[in-house]
């Protein structure tokens, strides 16, 4: 397998961009990433797109084809990957694999999304059948996505004594990081009191502890070592990347299921094993351990994720995140900086673009270009992202 390097990255600011189509967001962002790499459209040999179900892709999820046909009909390979909200991470992994295998010299990964307002609706045409859990959860109990996360948060309170103030502090940490990030949508600092005063959505989670939905786009251009040296870009290596699905017996309360094959007396299976599996495989591929990771970008759909994920995936002991947070150790200057970008809580989730954005942020961190939010001496960074259907993806970058 050949080594893989990041040649260029770009991300459109997150927000609501009514005047731009999904295709415009995609083209503008990939153009910027190619410019960052010093690569012309005609020299792109492959494009892997995270397929959205909300807009674009010619109705078939053909987002890579649509972009190539719109801008450069150069015969490049088009790959369109699904994976729900993990599709961006899966796209980066797929592009890296194409280069590692020696199939291509320069391949880009792209995620661009325009989100509908409010709770994410069912796909049109889905059957009214109780074997479709995204139908059953609505008709039988009306369980919204925040309700699933709230049940995890409530259980954490029961097991570790996490307080309302600690969940709120995790949310304010993400906002504080976003202050230094011009691409984040929510950059106004908030206090613990502000978070606790925001409306209760699903007890114990308040509005400011749950990610919104946004429009956004991110792109990463990857290449071989030869390509990186020829272009003269700062050397950031894709040291490991992996994708995984969930394991039987996983105790995660997984959207949109209504039951789980887990019980207190049963076998112990890792929580959110699809992401945990990808994180472990990516670390192994990179030949490093959790203690070597200088900065972590994880999918913080809620304040609970900021605390629980580093524990679930072996970066911290169970229950340790609360006091790490209180001591400032999860901040930019801390021992385990989490989401210097500001995370989903500051961006709002542009589903398929999110996993690509995480990689962009780590590249800026490892290049020392993260002005206003730079993690000191960051040399190894890792992403972790979760998608519908028990999809997980993780990328390890090394400077």
């Amino acid at each position: 397998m050949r080594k893989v390097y990041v040649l260029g990255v770009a991300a459109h600011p997150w927000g609501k961009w009514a005047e731009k189509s999904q295709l415009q967001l995609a083209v503008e962002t990939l153009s910027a990433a190619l410019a960052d790499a010093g690569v012309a459209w005609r020299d792109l040999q492959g494009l892997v797109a995270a397929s959205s179900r909300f807009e674009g892709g010619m109705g078939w999820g053909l987002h890579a084809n649509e972009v190539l046909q719109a801008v450069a009909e150069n015969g490049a390979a088009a790959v369109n990957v699904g994976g729900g909200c993990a599709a961006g991470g899966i796209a980066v992994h797929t592009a890296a694999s194409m280069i590692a295998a020696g199939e291509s010299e320069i391949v880009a990964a792209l995620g661009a999304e325009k989100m509908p307002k409010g709770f994410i609706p069912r796909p049109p045409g889905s059957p009214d059948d109780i074997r479709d859990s995204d139908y059953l959860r609505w008709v039988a109990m009306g369980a919204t996505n925040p309700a699933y996360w709230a049940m995890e948060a409530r259980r954490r309170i029961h097991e570790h004594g996490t307080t309302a103030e600690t969940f709120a502090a995790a949310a304010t940490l993400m906002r504080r990081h976003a202050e230094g990030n011009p691409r984040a949508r929510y950059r106004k600092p908030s206090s613990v009191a502000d978070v606790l005063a925001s409306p209760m959505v699903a007890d114990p989670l308040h509005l400011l502890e749950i990610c919104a939905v946004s429009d956004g786009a991110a792109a990463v251009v990857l290449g071989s070592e030869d390509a990186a040296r020829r272009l003269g870009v700062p050397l950031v290596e894709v040291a490991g990347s992996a994708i995984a699905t969930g394991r039987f017996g996983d105790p995660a309360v997984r959207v949109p299921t209504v039951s789980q094959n887990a019980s207190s007396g049963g076998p112990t299976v890792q929580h959110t094993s699809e992401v945990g599996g990808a994180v472990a495989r990516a670390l192994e591929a990179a030949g490093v351990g959790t203690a070597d990771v200088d900065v972590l970008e994880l999918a913080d759909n809620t304040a609970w994720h900021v605390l629980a994920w580093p524990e679930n995936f072996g970066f911290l002991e169970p229950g340790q995140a609360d006091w790490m947070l209180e001591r400032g150790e999860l901040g930019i200057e801390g021992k385990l900086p989490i989401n210097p970008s500001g995370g989903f809580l500051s961006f709002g989730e542009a589903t398929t673009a999110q996993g690509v954005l995480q990689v962009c942020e780590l590249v800026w961190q490892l290049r020392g270009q993260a002005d206003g939010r730079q993690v000191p001496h960051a040399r190894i960074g890792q992403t972790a992202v979760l998608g519908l259907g028990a999809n997980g993806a993780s990328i390890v970058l090394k400077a």
Partner: protein
Amino acid sequence: MIAVADDLFTVDETGTALLGARCTGCGTHYFPEPVSCRNPECDRKDLEIVTLGRTGVLFSWTVQHYQPPALFRVDDWQPYAIGLVELPEGLRVLAMLTGAPPGEVAIGSPLTLTTVALYRDDEGRDVSTYAYAPSGGAL
């Protein structure tokens, strides 16, 4: 009373039970009936329909303060509790909680399956879903 969906739960003189399945190969219980046994260690994957979940223990809960989208139909909407309930059959299920004010049932409480009315349909019938209530009556 009619059920919010077919093949979901059953009510008779002995009480309310969920309709699920059990794999005769590995003994795993499922709710609702799945396409197949999902245990990767099981090669037999032979399902039989069973009733389950007549009782359980509360593992976690939330109170929803925003009305869910329209696919969830209820006549008298107000914030309500949803629980994650551990069943003696070795699985956990999500269900509405009833028989106590929202947020007033503690983790670890024993629960019994019952039904709650959601809405009256166009033909004047009461449509109900399954829900867990504190065992031994209302708090």
